[in-house]
């Protein structure tokens, strides 16, 4: 990137974008996190993974959580999904305090976690069936969700017959079929190759456009965060704390071409600066000069 290019301030919003954020703020709060703290007991004494994390996500918002490794993103989302308990703090979904896992908060994992003994359709039917819906109803509903993620042809395939991207689409359909009020996605595209990841990001936006769902998306990929989000929650590491909530000024609908928009690049640069402060760069990428014996390389 040439230094001559002047980027706008990441806070500068066009009137349309500003209006959109105004509307977003008026919507009810879907998820409210207040003073969430998590302290692990390790052999070397207590370790604070998260300290006083507070934020709120509005209805139909897509919020990404980003931060350097070790900032507790995964711990945060696992607490939100009820898979881990917090040491202190409060968690509300549409104003109601929640604890423990429940069908109101869906989750898509990085490792797909499809049930390998069930077909695509049966996987998607899992949520409705455990909720006590009749078979036929669950089946027709599952078909709709599978259709939405574009896998109708594979409804009777087993997970091991699908590619990584297809598996993750099934996992999304399975989570959505349960009609959760908030959907958590824990680095869902982290295991996919770059090309598939790009496609999956567009897919996700398409799905999100058509479904009334609030999404909290954990990622360590800056471009992914900026491309997907309404707002980005940037976390600090050691202990995990909220550094800033960035409103992404890139207008919607998003397209891949927008990654060259000045607003996109400005946001990206700002968050990059938070995650990799200029002074710390050296520390994070130690160069093993001693190990290199080839004089041409040294």
């Amino acid at each position, binding site marked *: 990137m040439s230094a001559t290019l002047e980027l706008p301030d990441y806070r500068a919003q066009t009137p349309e974008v500003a209006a959109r954020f105004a509307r977003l703020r008026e919507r009810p709060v879907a998820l409210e996190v207040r003073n969430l703290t998590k302290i692990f007991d390790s052999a070397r004494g207590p370790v604070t993974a998260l300290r006083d994390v507070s934020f709120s996500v509005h209805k139909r918002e897509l919020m990404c959580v980003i931060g350097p490794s070790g900032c507790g993103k995964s711990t945060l989302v696992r607490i939100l999904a009820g898979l881990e308990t917090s040491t202190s703090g409060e968690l509300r979904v549409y104003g109601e305090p929640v604890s423990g896992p*429940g*069908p109101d908060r869906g989750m898509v994992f990085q490792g797909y976690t499809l*049930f390998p*003994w069930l077909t695509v359709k049966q996987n998607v039917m*899992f*949520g409705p069936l*455990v909720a006590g819906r009749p078979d036929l109803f669950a089946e027709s509903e599952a078909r709709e969700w599978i259709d939405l993620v574009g896998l109708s042809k594979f409804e009777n395939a*087993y997970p091991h017959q699908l590619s990584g991207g297809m598996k993750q689409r099934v996992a999304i359909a399975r*989570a959505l079929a349960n009609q959760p009020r908030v959907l958590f996605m824990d680095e869902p595209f982290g295991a996919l190759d770059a090309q598939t990841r790009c496609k999956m990001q567009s897919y996700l936006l398409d799905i999100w456009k058509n479904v009334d769902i609030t999404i909290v998306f954990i990622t360590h990929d800056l471009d992914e965060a900026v491309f997907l989000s309404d707002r980005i929650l940037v976390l600090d590491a050691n202990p995990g704390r909220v550094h800033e909530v960035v409103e992404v000024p890139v207008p919607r609908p998003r397209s891949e071409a927008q990654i060259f928009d000045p607003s996109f690049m400005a946001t990206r640069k700002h968050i990059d600066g938070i995650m990799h402060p200029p002074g710390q760069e050296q520390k994070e990428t130690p160069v093993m000069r001693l190990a290199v014996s080839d004089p041409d390389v040294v």
Partner: protein
Amino acid sequence: MARPGILRDWFLIRRDLPHRRRLALAAVSFLLPITIWCVVSYVPWIWHPDVKIELSAEREGVTTVFTAGDHVSPEFFPEFQAAVRAENKAVLAAREAGNPESGAKRKNQKLLRQLAPVAIGNGWLAYDDAQNDAVLYPLWGDLATGRKTAAKPALTAENLQIVRANWELLAAASPVFAFAKLPDEPLLKLIPQGRPANPVYLPAPHEAIRAGIRDFTAAAPAGEPTMFERYKRSLRIILLGFLWSCVIGIPIGILCGVFDFFSRLFEPFVDFFRYMPAPTFSTLLVAVLLAGDAPKIALVIIGTVFQMILVISKTTRLLDPSLLEAAQTLGAKPRQILGRVVIPGIMPNLYNDLRILLGWAWTWLVIAELIGVKSGLTEFIETQGRFRNFDRVFPVIILIGVTGFVTDQILSWLHGLLFPWAGKSGAFSRGVAGVVTWPIRMVAEGARERIAANEAYSRTNPRDKTR
């Protein structure tokens, strides 16, 4: 590509061989030990440390009696022959001196029966008819006059001469057997014959096969079960024992794997108990459950169930915990997680565990059949082993092996059918299962053809449908 073809084709580091080569090697892995067995048995100069007696003789004043089929050392055998020759010399000397021993009718009758193993070997006499003097007596004549020639085993020239010499005396007395007309003076004894043989514990393949066919086709001695009844009884004990083990072990194992509560409650004791060898409970079991099959089944259960609980609880714990988390986020309650995630999720591994445990159960079966009143195949092995009839023991041991192996291969093949999502079954097990299920598939094929023919008929004759 400098490597010669054979190395390139067959020896590849961490690379699977083509299907055909794999099958060929699987066949060779069985042919190899069989070939070794055959070579050791049939090529005389490889081993053969014993002499197997084909024709025996009793010695005067020696209580140790060898019968045909017995093994003696090659050092002793010439001594044995020399002793008998010396006796013959004494008889001839007495005869020439004109004062032969008298009152030897009983001895002579026994002596005539020396030919019995030769007669049986050549098929002139039934296997269990060695004392049929009426058949044996004229046989001496037939051999002496050359009407019959012994082939398997053949008589040595020395023995043929003795046969002729004896027949001279016998023919003078009577052409057919009559105890009263047997010569009063002693006849000459046949000199023991033998051939190099392997130790008695390694019968040649054909001997084992012959003994096996005889045992499995012949009617059982009175009061004893036939081989198939024994086989059925053994199978029944192992199946019942294993089934009860599953009924007890699988639920406890799964509960231990899922709930820490049950794990802490059961596993310490189970872990301790499995170190107490099951056979040590045998007398206790017989005292509690009395004779019959009950203590045997109980022994198989004791031997199997404790291992089963530990193995299954471990398998259950190995289930990917993220699947449980996924189920939780989908709203599944603990009971639903158990029924819809844990149990179906561990099924393929649990199934394989059971296959291995079934193999162990066979080991316990052998011990179980020896406690209380001995029964089944093991009782046969035990009894025949004591008589050193190892040619009859081998087929039974092999039968147990084949049963276990074929069962396991079929179960392995079924694994592929039952759990298509957990990978295909191996080609070898498919091959074995293909052979075993052939009759069933033929019947099914026939039924399918008949249905197809009926359908074709009703298509061409639509009116039939209304009937």
